[in-house]
């Protein structure tokens, strides 16, 4: 896959504080790349620099379109759903979508057709002539999403696309984003909801305090942090499990127990050590989540930083 966006060693300082420190990553055509981190980590600043809204103090940005490399953002070929997003409240849905797609250079007739297709997809066809102020928050967010992809850009940047959505709408969004990637768009998603991004991203970049924490394909990261997590529901103490030499650490929340197995311990290996009389009501085993990997690394500082890109 070819890179659509190349971010190389960018830096940004505000009021003497370095908010972005030497960050590099790429987004490839047809993939969903997640940039993740806690609130205030530097995600939105990085995205604003990509979008050309602010400029990096140092470093380079390269966009590859139709075999050409540019270092200025080709605005008509990029779609953007910002975190601070809204719509003109007084305007009608159709009007505003026509205006925004017009700014991207999309022909009015084609735009009108595509708008109706998208509105139907999101079951909003009957709202085409409604004013934005009559829409619910979720509906407005769908309209904003449509505005960012209507002109079929080569690169779509979605800043916190799932925030404020109910679970049903989140699923619809995930599905649509996946489809756009399958059509060949390069998609960059920023989010602090790791579980959601984990489900759809091919590769991720984790950022904390303006610095790179982790970067690479999701599966590789999970294999690197190859531990498993055993979730148990048990009313009583289970020292035979928590003190097992195969368990690295555990946490207890009421009757919920969560055990992290040591690296390179296979689930079956651990299960075989459980005595038959252990007072267990429920038991499940899963790969350690991205959330847990992030917490482990963030707490340990950036010295744990790894780069799986070149493996």
């Amino acid at each position, binding site marked *: 896959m070819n890179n659509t966006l190349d971010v190389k060693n960018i830096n940004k300082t505000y009021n003497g504080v370095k908010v972005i420190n030497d960050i590099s990553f790429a987004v490839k055509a047809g993939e969903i790349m997640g940039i993740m981190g806690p609130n205030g980590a530097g995600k939105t600043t990085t995205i*604003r620099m990509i979008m050309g*809204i602010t400029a990096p103090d140092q470093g380079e940005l390269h966009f590859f379109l139709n075999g050409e490399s540019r270092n200025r953002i080709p605005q008509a070929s990029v779609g*953007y759903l910002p975190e601070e997003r*809204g719509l003109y409240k007084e305007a009608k849905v159709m009007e505003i979508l026509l205006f925004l797609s017009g700014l991207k250079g999309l022909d009015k007739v084609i735009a009108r057709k595509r708008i109706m297709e998208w509105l139907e997809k999101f079951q909003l066809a009957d709202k085409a002539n409604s004013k934005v102020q009559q829409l619910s928050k979720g509906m407005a967010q769908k309209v904003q999403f449509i505005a960012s992809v209507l002109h079929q850009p080569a690169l779509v940047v979605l800043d916190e696309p799932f925030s404020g959505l109910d679970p049903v709408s989140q699923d619809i969004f995930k599905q649509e984003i996946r489809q756009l990637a399958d059509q060949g768009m390069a998609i960059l998603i920023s989010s602090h909801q790791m579980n959601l991004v984990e489900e759809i991203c091919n590769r991720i970049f984790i950022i904390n305090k303006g610095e790179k924490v982790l970067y690479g394909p999701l599966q590789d990261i999970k294999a690197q942090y190859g531990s498993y997590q055993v979730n148990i529901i048990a009313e009583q103490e289970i020292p035979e499990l928590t003190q097992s030499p195969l368990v690295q650490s555990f946490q207890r929340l009421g009757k919920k127990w969560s055990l992290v197995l040591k690296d390179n311990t296979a689930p079956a290996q651990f299960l075989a050590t459980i005595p038959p009389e252990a007072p267990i009501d429920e038991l499940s085993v899963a790969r350690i989540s991205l959330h847990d990997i992030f917490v482990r690394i963030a707490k340990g500082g950036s010295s744990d930083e790894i780069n799986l890109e070149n493996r």
Partner: protein
Amino acid sequence: MKLTWKIAKWEFTRNFTNKQFLIGLLLTPIIMLLFAGVPQLISKLDKPQQEVFYVIDEISEFGQLVEAATDTNLKFVQYQGEQAELEELVLEEEATGYFILNQAFLKTGQVQVHTAEKKVVFKELQGLLSNLLQGLRVQEIGIKQEQVAYLTSPALLSSVQIGGESNGDQSNRIGVSIALAGIVLFLIFTSGAMLLQSALQEKQDRMAEIILSSVSSDNLMQGKIIGHFLLGISQLVLWLSIGLPAAWYFMDIPVWAMISLGQLPILIFFALTGYLLFAALFVGIGSTMTDMQSASNTQGMVFMLPMLGFIFVGPVISNPNGLAAQIGTFFPLTSPTITILRLGLAEVPTWELVVAAIILLVTTLLVIKAAAKLFRVGMLMYGKSASAAEMWKWMRY
């Protein structure tokens, strides 16, 4: 440039189809017409009440008196009988009063007017009786009426400037220049207020970032300025198309005669550049605010700047080529209105016009550049209004 026009078109249509704008558009001329036209209409309808006087005529001149009163509000009724009864009659019939024309009147010119009310103004009556008295005395001496007219005709004065125009044309020119300066100020205020609102709207509706991912901040700012200029102009054209005929009809102002002006290109230059200067100032400052309530003193003061011109209006009218007028012409913030005003009042030296035009143009370009810098940062700032120090930092960035 294409994107600038798209923004301008959007700003124009969005406002032009806005209910509030349309209501204001239609209501303003109606309110103005009411204020200007109704008093005129009332005074046309409201004829003064007729005043009735009874006359005891002892010198047989009643006929002449009635004839002289034909086009006045005075009505005379001849009375023959007792004075005491007449007094009752006056009170009964609510007449204004009565008087006696006798030999004493011919001799001394004195008349006692007995009135029902305490205070009566006799201006018209006094004129009539004076004429009557003069006529009778002229007859008595034996001079002809024409000779009297010849003797008493007053001197008539009218001024003609050497190599200039007549008095009437000049007052028309003053009227036009004051009206034009007023229109420029009006355009600056209304469009300026709308521009400010529009920059705030983008921030309140959280649209700035979406728009700025498609167009540059310069394009956005230019588009807004052009869009609101067109909006202001169309508003003005609509109002003038109602207002000018109305002014002509209700107030008898010869509007059509006043419009022809040779200095139109100079006027248009100062009006347009002035508009651009303030529009850039307003939109730049507007982008640094969160809402009208949170405007700081610095920001509030900027919106008062177009008013600066008023300081100079008095001195300029009394001495159109004095020092105050020159300062007002050269100072870029007052230059658009004061230059337009001066052009109507007197001949402004060409070098002054050229210098004023250069200063205004350079200032406008600098302000546009600074405003674009403020706009670029300000539009993306949420939650707080910028301080003067922050604005200064952005402008140097």
